[in-house]
Every structure is written in C-alpha cells, then in structure tokens.
C-alpha cells in the first residue's frame, strides 16, 4: 500500500473528529467558557481602587433584585416594566403587521419579488444606523416627522418626541418595529408557502369564509413558523441594546431604560462588573425561561 493510500485511509478514519472537534473546541472556548466566567463574575465584586475581585456570594443579585427600601429594588421593577412594554408592544405590532404583509406577499402578484426585496431591506441595515436614523426622524426642529406634520398644517407646535418619556418609548417601539418586521415577514412567508393550496381551495369550495379558512387551514400549518418568529423576536428584543442606546440612551431621565441599557450602564459606565454580570445572569435565565414557556404552550402542532 502506498503512503498516499495510507494517508487517505487515515484521514477518512478520522473524518468525524477532524470535522467536529475544531468546532466543538471553538464553542467550548468562545461560548461555554465565557458563560462560566459570567457566573463566576456575578458572584464576585471588584474593588474600585485595587481592581481585585473578591467573592461576595449572592450579594450582587441581592443588590439588583432586592436593594433599596421596599421588597424589590425599585429600579429593577421600573426597568423590568419598561422592558416588558418595549418587548410586548414591539413584538405585537411587528407580528400583526408582518403577518398581514406576509399574507399579501403570498398572493400570486406580478412584481412580488421586487416588493419582497423592498420590504426586507430595513432588517439588513446596521441597527445603530437605524436607531440614529429614527432619532433624526424624530428630531423636534429638523426631523422629518415634525416636518411633514407641520408643513401639512396638522400641528402648530412641534412635538418634542424624545424629551417626553411616553413619546420616547413610542419612538423606540416604532424604530424596533421598523427594523424587525421584515424578519417576521421572511419567516411567516416561508411558513405560508407550506400551506397546501388544494386544501385552501377545497375549504373555499365548501364555503368557508376568509377568517374560517385562516384558522382552520392556514394557522395549523403556520403555527411552527409563528412559534419560531415569536420566540426569536422576543428573545432578541429582551437583549436589544443597539437601538435603545443610540435613540434614547434610556432617557429622558431613565424613562426608557430597559434591561439591556441598564446592564451596559452598570457594567461599563458605572464600572460595576459584578452587578452587570448578575444582571447578565438574569437576562440569560429569563431568555431560556421565555423559550421554555413558549414551546410548552404552543410547541405541539398536529402537523409537525
């Protein structure tokens, strides 16, 4: 047997380890190890002067969750509320709009490819650019929104979008919906294409109305896609910092501060990595809890 053949045999025998071990090691180093470090950091506190870390047990968690006069840390409650409103509204609106657009795009229209392309673009732009773009849109004197409203004569005083807490939250939600609706559209459109057309036609022949057809024919096939779209949307919104940080930076005051911006501020701006890491653990656990709940509640589909 020639050397070359031996080499070929050896390489083939080691095919699985050669193709899997590099990835497994990479994942170990770049995902597993940092996650363990996160847990370690959350149990330690850094001395601001010496930079030494000392073990403090669950003190960081205690500070974040229960620090302050009441039972819970009031900041924690407030920012959790903001996060819930932000995620809840953004996901709901983008889902409703996304489902509607996806169903229209699923029709056999000429130029559908172009429309789909035009619809997807916001999602592939850098989130930072989109966040800043919306900050520019909402700019009170020079922004396009007040510009349009004012020039159409719909308002006489320009609206100070970003210096009002509620308005700033609405601005954030609009930006978020703008960025992420294309994602919902892509996923749901793929799901809609799995719905057998004959079944739809049969239901129509049987006299089922639009709504009845959606619930009885489309929805069961679409359910897995809806589950994926919602899960990823919710999970990605809980962690989303980009848009918040450049559009409102949690302001005015702390009226749009969400978990992600709180975490960044705590860890980087206030230089408290221990508490930042503890918050990281909270975000991590919440993420997997949300996934578990969603899959428990909607995971079983008769068509899967």
């Amino acid at each position, binding site marked *: 047997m020639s050397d070359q053949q031996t080499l070929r045999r050896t390489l083939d025998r080691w095919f699985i380890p050669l193709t899997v071990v590099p990835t497994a090691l990479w994942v170990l180093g770049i995902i597993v190890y940092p996650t363990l470090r996160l847990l370690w950091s959350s149990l330690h506190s850094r001395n601001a002067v010496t930079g030494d870390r000392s073990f403090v047990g669950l003190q960081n968690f205690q500070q974040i969750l229960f620090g302050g006069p009441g039972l819970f840390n009031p900041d924690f409650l407030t920012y959790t509320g903001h996060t819930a409103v932000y995620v809840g509204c953004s996901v709901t609106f983008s889902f409703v709009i996304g489902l509607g657009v996806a169903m229209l795009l699923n029709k056999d229209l000429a130029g559908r490819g172009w429309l789909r392309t035009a619809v997807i673009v916001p999602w592939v732009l850098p989130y930072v650019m989109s966040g800043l773009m919306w900050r520019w849109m909402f700019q009170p004197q020079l922004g396009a929104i007040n510009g349009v409203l*004012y020039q159409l004569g719909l308002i006489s005083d320009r609206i100070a979008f970003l210096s009002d807490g509620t308005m700033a939250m609405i601005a954030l939600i609009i930006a978020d919906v703008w960025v992420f609706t294309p994602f919902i559209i892509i996923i749901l459109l793929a799901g809609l294409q799995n719905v057998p057309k004959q079944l739809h036609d049969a239901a129509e022949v049987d006299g089922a109305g639009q709504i009845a057809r959606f619930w009885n024919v489309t929805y069961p096939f679409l359910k897995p896609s809806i589950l994926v779209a919602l899960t990823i949307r919710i999970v990605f919104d809980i962690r989303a910092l980009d848009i918040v940080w450049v559009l409102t930076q949690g302001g005015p005051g702390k009226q749009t501060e969400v978990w992600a911006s709180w975490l960044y501020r705590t860890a980087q701006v206030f230089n408290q990595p221990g508490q930042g890491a503890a918050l990281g653990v909270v975000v991590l656990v919440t993420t997997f809890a949300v996934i578990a709940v969603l899959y428990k509640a909607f995971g079983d589909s008769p068509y899967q």
Partner: protein
Amino acid sequence: MSTTNDTLVGRVRSHLGLSTDEEWPAVVRERLFAYAVLVLYVVVVWFPIYYIFITSLKTSGEVLNTPVTFFPHTATIQNYVDIFANRPFATYTMNSLVVAVTTTVICVTLGTISGYTFSRFTFLGNKSLLLSIVGARMIPPIALIVPFFDIMAGLGIYNTQIALILTYTFFNLPFAVWIMKNFFDGVPESLDEQAQIDGCSRWEGFVKVILPMAKPGIAATAILAFIFSWNEFVFALVLTSSEAAQTLPVAVSLFVADDFVDWAHLAAGGMIAALPGILFGLFFQRYIVSGLTQGAVKE
C-alpha cells in the same frame, strides 16, 4: 377622482372587458387591494432611508434650516469627502471589512465541515452536541459583555480586531453549523455513496461532489455571517476604544456628542455603514431568505 385616474381605471376596465356598470371581479379587487397596501407599506418603510440619504447630500447649512426640505436644494458629496478627510473613516471601513470577512471565513469553514458531519453521521453524543451548539445561539450576547471584556483584557487583545473576530464567531458559528446541517440534509445521501463507489475517499467525495451542491447554502451562510458581523455594535462598543479596532457602527455613533449631533456627517457615515446591507438586501435577497428560513424554521 381626477380625470387621468378615471381614464386609467377606464383603460384597465376595458382591458378586462368590463362594461361601465359591471362590478370588478373579486380576484382583481383582491389584487388591487394587495398592491395598494404593499406599495403604501414600502413607501412608508423606505421614507426614513430616503430622508437620511438626502440628509447626507445636503450642505450642513441646509440640514440646520427650517422648514425641513424633502428635496435637497444643493446636492453635494462634501459630507462623504469630509468624513474620510477629517475622521479616520478609511480605517473604520477597513476594520469593519477585516473583522467581518475573517469572521465569515472562520464560521463558514467550521460550519460547513461540522454541518456536513452532523447531517450524515451518528456518533457518540452527536445529538446532544448539536443541540448544545444550536442552543448556544440563544444565549443573549448582552449578558456576556462582562466576561468578554475580562477575557479580552486578560489576553491583552482589548481594542484589537482579533478580539472582535473571536467574539463575533460566538453568535455566528452556531448559526452557521445549523444552516449548513439543514442544507446538507437536503443533499441526497445517494450522492455520497455514488462518490465512494466511484473510488473517492470520504474527503474527496465531500469536496468534489457534495460541496458544489451546497454552494447556495454556503452563500447564504456567508452573506448572513457577513451582515451580522458588519452590523454588530454592542461588542464593538465594549471591546474597542480607538480607531485601532473601532468599526463603522461605533464610528457612526461617535457623531453623537452630549449636546450636539452632527447630522449631515452622521448621515453620510450611516449610509456607508448601511451600504453592504442595502446591496446584499437588494441583490442577494434570495440567499438571505433561504438562509434565515433554513436557520430558523427547521427546528
């Protein structure tokens, strides 16, 4: 209703062979409705992009003038010239390119070979290994800014392109493995067998027969990994501090000072940061859609 509209409608009606008092057929009404809504949606969605684009072409003076103009009086590329002349935008662009391309190459390479093996072989722990790799993509990156900062500082690579590349593989690699596995699942296994019967080794069969079949999957993975890396902001913000490693998203955010935003130049910088996304979105939409679908729906 205007006369032009009437004649247009009239022309469509006569084209469809409808008499004046006949109602539109349901199909036509449905489609017209779909077009109307979709076109309106596209216009609303593209308006902010249009507005920031024309802002990037306005003179700094016009940007600060009220009432706001929706067509620039004087279109100029001066803002683009300025940011490359007065700010290190060439360096930022280079950093973005190096980081995004290297991350993409690493993730596509590892994702392709591992994705293939996960698709074809059963081996000890293959299911749980795949599951943990895929589960890893659900770990929120924001949660890990503290450990990643510590690790990169500890390795002495804080504020380098390497730190960003390593970090970006963290969310792109699991995704790449998963998309590629799903693509290989769609490549018939009989092709592997045929290659082996024809005397190819495992590796030869993989490289010569299977890889060419997986080109669309590789393209989809590469485009998505590139876009995700190019657009990433949070880690770039946490792990860099100067133009030695700062990427375009961070550079654009630097136009925001505490009390003043240089909108004209920010808009120009933003357009440059957005360019690959817009181009990929317009010309490779097919791959983005197929990659996302393979990556997300096939659970």
